[in-house]
C-alpha cells in the first residue's frame, strides 16, 4: 500500500488544497491502474474514507487506485456564493492527478466515482456534469438537492442552502441531478452506469426513492438500486455499499478481484 497526502495548487479555487491518494502495493512497470474518485459527506474531508473504511485492503483486493478529494461543505458544486468546488473536483483535480500519477489511467472506462450523503449527491452531480470522464457512479444515501424542502427562514441551514445553490427552486437547474440526467439523454452522449443505494432506516430514504423512481423512468440509463433494510445513514452502510459497488464493477467487467 501507499497512502499519500497530496497538496496541490488549484486554479479554480485560487489556493492550495489537500487530497488523499491510495495506491495498491504491487504496480507493474508502466501499468495504468483503474481509479475510483471517492467523495466525503457534509462534515467530512479527504481523510473520511481513510479513517472509516479499510481503504488499503480494498486497494489491494481490487487492484485499484482511490482518490479522496476535499471540498469542505460545498456539496461538490460551484457555489452560488463561494468557491468553484464543482469545477475543481470534477474537472481540474482529475487532470492534475492524471498528469501527476504515471500509474493511474485517465481512460473513461477505468474511472469510477462514488460517495455518500452530500458526496452521494456530489458524485451524481460530477459524473453527470462531466460524463466523458467517468463510466460508473456509486451513489450511497444520495438524494437530489432539488427535492430537499427549502424554507428561507434565516436559519443556519437556509443560509448555507442559499450560499450553495441560491434561494430558488432547483429542479430546472444544473444543480439538480435529475435535470442533468435528462440533459444527457437530450445531448445523446454516453451515459455513466448508475449504482444507487440507500439504507432502509435512512431519514432521507424518501428523497432517494424520488431519484430511484426518476431513473427508472429513463430506460437510457443502466440503473441499479440497492437497499439494506436494517441500516441507516451510517458508516456501516457506506462501507458495505462500497464493497457492493466494487463487486458490481467486477460483474460489469470494469475491474477484477485479486
Amino acid at each position, binding site marked *: *500500500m*501507499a*497512502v*499519500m*497526502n*497530496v*497538496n*496541490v*495548487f488549484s486554479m479554480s479555487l485560487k489556493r492550495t488544497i489537500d487530497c488523499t491518494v491510495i*495506491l495498491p*502495493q504491487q*504496480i507493474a*512497470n508502466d*501499468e495504468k491502474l483503474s481509479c475510483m474518485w471517492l467523495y466525503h459527506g457534509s462534515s467530512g474531508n479527504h481523510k473520511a474514507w481513510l479513517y472509516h473504511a479499510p481503504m488499503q485492503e480494498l486497494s489491494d483486493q481490487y487492484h485499484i487506485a482511490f482518490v479522496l478529494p476535499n471540498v469542505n461543505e460545498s456539496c461538490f458544486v460551484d457555489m452560488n456564493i463561494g468557491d468553484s468546488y464543482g469545477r475543481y473536483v470534477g474537472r481540474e483535480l482529475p487532470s*492534475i492527478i492524471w*498528469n*501527476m*500519477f*504515471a*500509474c493511474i489511467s485517465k481512460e473513461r472506462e477505468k474511472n469510477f466515482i462514488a460517495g455518500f450523503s452530500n458526496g452521494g449527491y456530489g458524485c451524481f452531480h460530477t459524473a453527470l456534469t462531466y460524463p466523458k470522464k467517468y463510466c460508473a457512479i456509486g451513489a450511497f444515501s444520495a438524494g437530489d438537492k432539488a427535492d430537499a424542502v427549502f424554507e428561507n427562514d434565516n436559519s443556519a441551514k437556509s443560509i448555507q442552502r442559499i450560499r450553495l445553490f441560491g434561494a430558488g427552486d432547483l429542479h430546472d437547474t444544473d444543480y439538480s441531478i435529475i435535470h442533468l440526467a435528462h440533459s444527457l439523454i437530450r445531448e445523446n452522449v454516453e451515459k455513466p452506469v448508475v449504482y444507487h443505494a440507500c439504507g432502509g432506516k435512512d431519514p432521507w430514504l424518501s428523497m432517494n426513492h424520488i431519484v430511484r423512481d426518476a431513473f427508472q423512468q429513463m430506460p437510457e440509463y443502466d440503473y441499479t438500486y440497492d437497499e439494506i433494510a436494517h441500516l441507516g445513514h451510517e458508516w456501516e452502510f457506506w462501507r458495505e455499499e462500497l464493497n457492493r459497488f466494487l463487486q458490481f464493477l467486477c460483474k460489469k467487467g470494469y475491474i477484477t478481484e485479486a
Partner: protein
Amino acid sequence: MAWLTIEFQSETLHMPVMLDVLIPQGRGGYRTLYLLHGAGGDHASWLLKTQLADFVEGKNLAVVMPSGDNRCYVDNIHGKDYFQYVAHELIEQCETWFPLSKDKQDRFIAGMSMGGYGAFYAAFQEYNQYAKVFSYSGLLDILQRYDHPQGLDLFPVFGSRQQLLDGNFDLFHQATDNQEYFQKSQEGVTRFYIFCGLQDVRIDMSSQMYAHLQTLGYDVSYETAEGGHKWDYWNQCIARTIAIISEKKEAK
C-alpha cells in the same frame, strides 16, 4: 507545484516508511533530485528548515526526500538495508508512481552531513544512476567519524572498525576502487560537487575528498562559502544545487 507526504510499505526495510515529494503540476518527464537529510533528521527536515519549496517553484524538477533513520543510507551490518531502499526501491517506486524521467542525465542525488555521505556512497555504487551528486558539509571521512562518534552509535550501521574497512564503507577507498567508471573523459559520467562552509569544523573531509577525486581523474568541483555546519548554509547549498541542475537543462 504539489507537495506529497507519502506513507508506503517498504519491502526492502519490512516496515512502513514516510517520504516527502515536491513535484511540478505539469505534464511529466521531470528531472528528479533525491535529497537526503543528516543525522537527527527525517523526511521533513529539508522542508522545515530551508526555502527548498521556493527554490523549486517553476522549475521542471521533482524532489524526493526519504527518511534515513540515522542509518547512513548503507546496508547496515546489524540492521536494515537502507542503501537498497534509497538507491533501488525508492527510485523504482517513484518512477512507477510519477511521470519522472528515467534517464540517468535527469536523475540527481544530494545530501547534507550524513546525507552527503549517503549521496556519495550511492553514486559510487551506482555509476549509471545519477547525472550529478552533491555533498554539503558531507561526512565524507566515515572512519574519522567512527573513531569520534560524538553520540551517534555507528556500531549497528558499520559493525566493528574492521568490518567498516572490510565492508568497503570508506568513501576514499570506494573512489579508488571505482575509478575506472568515473573518468572525466567518459561521456555522461557522473559529476561530483563538494560544498562546505568555511567555518565547518570538519571542512578537511571535504577538501581532502576533493583532492582525492581530482587525483583519480573524477569530474569534480569544490565550492566553499562563509558558513558552519548549519541550515542557513545548507539553504544556500540547495539553492545553488537547483540553479546548477536547472541551467544544464536550459542549455540543451
